[in-house]
């Protein structure tokens, strides 16, 4: 446990790096990057809902293949997608789904002594893993091909209140400010720490770090408020709507609609 501070620093750095890479990919010249964010948000969200609604494994598998093709066409590396999405989801959902192949009552397809693998159990596990993998890939595609501020603006097509969009945007920005503060706090502590911290000291360190971060957050919210007021903020939120749908965007929308409708039909 000597690396408690190091592991916390590593997880904070990893989050920053992933965000930076996502932003880099989002600005590259891929297929989905060229699509109007509103079309992407609506289209990919529709596909995620269809994945959740489908009652056929073949339909879920087909949507997974479509998601993988879209990722390849959008310069999203398969290795990155596997490392960030597919393997973690497989481990997490796989661990949850594994007992289901034995515990779900039904027609036994293989006997393992005191227990048996059932057909219904295999199907249940396949549904769970297939849905989780496909939906995660589609949601990852959205943020890997669209800068976050554009995703937020596009949320307005779902009648998301402007104030919520503004808060989401500011939250995302301050996540990285507070992340940097937390990183500096742990690095400062790491530079002053010699030897192994006992468990009680590690808990005290984590609680104090959270407390300091809370105090700094309160102070920061006050300063941000003052800065906003000094620039004329009186509570009204205005968002610049500079999206312009082109003919190709309408084609993409039609494509998303067609795939979603067909999947819904075959998957019912």
């Amino acid at each position: 446990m000597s690396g408690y501070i190091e592991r916390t620093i590593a997880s904070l750095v990893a989050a920053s790096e992933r965000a930076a890479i996502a932003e880099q990919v989002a600005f590259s010249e891929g297929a989905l990057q060229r699509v109007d964010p509103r079309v992407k948000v609506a289209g990919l969200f529709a596909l995620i809902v269809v994945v959740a609604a489908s009652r056929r494994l073949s339909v879920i598998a087909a949507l997974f293949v479509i998601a993988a093709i879209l990722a390849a066409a959008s310069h999203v590396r398969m290795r990155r997608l596997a490392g960030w999405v597919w393997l973690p989801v497989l481990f997490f959902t796989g661990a949850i789904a594994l007992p289901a192949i034995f515990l779900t009552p039904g027609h036994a397809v293989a006997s393992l002594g005191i227990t048996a693998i059932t057909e219904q159990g295999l199907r249940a596990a396949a549904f769970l893993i297939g849905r989780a993998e496909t939906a995660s890939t589609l949601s990852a595609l959205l943020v890997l091909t669209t800068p976050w501020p554009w995703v937020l603006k596009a949320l307005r097509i779902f009648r998301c209140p402007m104030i919520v969009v503004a808060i989401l945007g500011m939250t995302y920005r301050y996540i990285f400010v507070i992340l940097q503060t937390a990183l500096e706090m742990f690095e400062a502590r790491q530079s002053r720490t010699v030897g192994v911290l006992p468990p009680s000291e590690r808990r005290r360190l984590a609680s104090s770090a959270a407390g300091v971060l809370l105090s700094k957050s309160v102070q920061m919210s006050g300063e941000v408020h003052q800065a906003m007021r000094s620039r004329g903020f009186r509570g009204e939120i205005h968002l610049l709507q500079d999206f312009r749908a082109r003919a190709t965007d309408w084609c993409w929308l039609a494509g998303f609609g067609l795939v979603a409708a067909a999947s819904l039909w075959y998957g019912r």
Partner: protein
Amino acid sequence: MAGRNLNQTALHIPDGYLSPATCAALYAGAAPFWYVSLQRMKRAFNTQMVPLLSVFAAFSFIIMMFNLPLPGGTTGHAVGVGIATIVLGPWASILGISIALIIQAVFFGDGGITAIGANCFNMAVIGSLATYAIYRVLAGRASITSARRVIAAGVAGYVAINLAALAAAIEFGIQPLLYHDASGAPLYAPYPLRIAIPAMMIGHLTIAGLAEMVVSAGVVAYLQRSEPALLKRTAPGAAESSAAVGSLRHLWFALAALLILTPLGILATGSAWGEAPLAQAPRGLRALSSFWTAPMPRYAPPFLKSPAFGYLLSAMTGTGLILLVVLLTGWLTRGRAGSRGLTK
């Protein structure tokens, strides 16, 4: 962006675990709480609402990333709902935690997009309201710096996160009852209530609950020492600092004891060191001795025959006079500060 961590995602329901109908019902269940929270926040904070919620949601997000060492050598992640509720109140916490969960789901892949309503209902709504109710009941009118508040925060965080886990377990457990294909295979979360509830609760009663308890209690203890003002929002009617009141009470008792013991001085033989008889004093001082005659010379008021009682009365009179001077000075100082405040 699914940088998933097994501990962290235990309560973050991913896509595909709940049916679309369940997800829609839980979005509908969370929506009124979001609406009421937004209206209350607008009324309470006006222009301060946007930065306050943004920064607090960002703080909650970062707290969820903290790797917390727990008793037994394991580690866990807290949701941060306990401390957010205690510092901000339940309504702001509902919004702040919900925003953190939305960003986690959409941008970082922790929790599903279709399950945002479910995750917000379980963690933000149930978590915040349960924390608030338990914290208020357990903390009572204890002072801000009381140890009782630390315990109340820990218990509230622990129970709240377990109630949220129980809600998630029930949502999982009803899926196989309601949704299965023609062969009987469950379409979503595959375990019935009798498996889903213990499976979820074992992990939360032991690890995730402890993580929330450590953060809630630890941060409240830290704020009591460094910024107690941040704890006042959810502590209406809290008594003045119990430590100060307690120490003052002890002082009163000590003072009373000393007053009662003052006649002991008579039992000692001889006179106190340095208190020379008037005859041995220099001539100049002897000349001045008649300038002021004390009303209670040598701690023996002339109208009392008992020297012990005289000593006691002298001690009480002296103490009373000192207290009177202190109180008068305090009253005058407060009066001036108040008049300055009014004229500002």
